[in-house]
């Protein structure tokens, strides 16, 4: 098949149960928040048409179950991902401590061709809760973690109030495109790289 400009961007949202993965996705795509989302079983995704630098993309956002016990399903759902969004709850230290696990598990199961440069974005969600008084993970601590993992972009969000959600996803789109090979951009009729190999770009940050 001839290589064309890529129009589908696949993004995976990972993080502990109850940090707000489904809510973030729904706030971004449908501009809605509900207290009554059910725990995600298996996986689901929503799509949204996005424009980036005069190009149109279909952003496919995958929402997965947060319990570690279901991680073995990842193999089927993570493949072909262009960006991984890690989410924690700023009011839960455990959800922050688990970020390393989620990141590593993703890299194992998705096995991207260039794991060192695979784009991640970190979201600290639920900043609205209790006016910020129940917060246990500081912005400084989160940013230090991001710095230690190769400058992962970081956003503090509230899926409930819609704070920073749009900004975060714009960055996610940008990062999902980060590793797009140059030739795919400018030489639409060249032969596809064997194995669909992509992810040879340099690292960068929003």
């Amino acid at each position, binding site marked *: 098949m001839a290589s064309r400009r890529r129009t589908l961007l696949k993004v995976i949202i990972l993080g502990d149960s109850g940090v707000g993965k489904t809510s973030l996705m729904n706030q971004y795509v449908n501009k809605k928040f509900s207290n009554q989302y059910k725990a995600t079983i*298996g996986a689901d995704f929503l799509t949204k048409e996005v424009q980036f630098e005069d190009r149109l993309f279909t952003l496919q956002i995958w929402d997965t179950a947060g319990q570690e016990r279901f991680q073995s399903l990842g193999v089927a759902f993570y493949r072909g991902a262009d960006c991984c969004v890690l989410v924690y709850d700023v009011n839960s230290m455990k959800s922050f401590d688990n970020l390393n696990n989620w990141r590593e598990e993703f890299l194992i199961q998705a096995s991207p061709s260039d794991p060192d440069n695979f784009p991640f974005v970190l979201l600290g969600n639920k900043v609205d809760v209790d006016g910020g008084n129940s917060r246990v993970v500081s912005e400084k601590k989160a940013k230090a973690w991001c710095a230690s993992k190769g400058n992962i972009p970081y956003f503090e969000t509230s899926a409930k109030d819609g704070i920073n959600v749009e900004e975060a996803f714009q960055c996610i789109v940008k990062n999902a495109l980060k590793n797009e090979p140059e030739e795919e951009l400018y030489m639409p009729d060249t032969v596809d790289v064997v194995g669909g190999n992509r992810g040879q770009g340099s690292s960068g940050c929003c």
Partner: protein
Amino acid sequence: MDSKALRKKIFYGGVDHVLRKEVWKFLLSYHEYDSTQAEREYLAAMKREEYEAIKSQWKSISTTQAKRFTKFRERKGLIDKDVVRTDRSVPYYEGDDNPNVIVLRDILVTYSFYNFDLGYCQGMSDFLAPILYVMEDESEAFWCFASLMERLGGNFNRDQNGMHAQLLGLSKLVELLDPSLHNYFRQNDCLNYFFCFRWVLIQFKREFSFDQIMLLWEVLWTHYFSEHFHLYLCVGILKRYRLRIIGEGMDFDTLLKFINELSGQINIDRAIQDAEALCTIAGEAGADCIPPGTPPSMPIETDGGLYLQEDDVL
């Protein structure tokens, strides 16, 4: 009591809601079919005491003790998060500070002590909510749920072996009952059947209304045609949509989305009729597709306990 005749009646007609509270106890093997009224009353009293004893094990954990008991805090935290998002649109569970939500929580935490190896896993609250709604009694709901987990514990095991066995069985059934659909799935890298994961894990709980699911579950729990009737339901529904799946050339992602969006769209009576017909057509060959010990068959016991878990159980 003639259990076969009763199960046949339930399979073909369900149970009037006022009778569910009694009938489900038999279907879930909490009560024996050949027990007497006196035996059942005695059992209920004994089991109530036993339940209270297990519940007191965690109720008596002090705040300072809990600080040093990470696994307890984490499990309880996970349960707390899930019960407030389980069937909250059903009047029995709706509204702030609903006491029934607390009972749901207490039963699940108690179960995670009763079966510490299996613990709590997402999806369990989906099973418990209708059971508690029907039983209207904490202890009886607990024991019915515990009985159900004897059969479905494999769905929630860390190694997911019960789920893999069922999805493999489903794959073999489709191969037997619809070879061309099977070929389509094979060619499109869909043979892991993960797109049916939610159907199988919580037995269609998210696909039907609360009232419909009570009916479907009692049909499944009769084990009248097969213990694995739910897998024939999967095959039947997939066959109903085979022309669209193949015609639209659905890949794995599209198929998953399509299946998820069937929620609320499936005609329950037709689905049960289709599954019954498929079960009859498949006969012995169908039963042979499903490995022994596949949930909800009773698990094959090993020396190491039923729910071998790695250390980092949650």
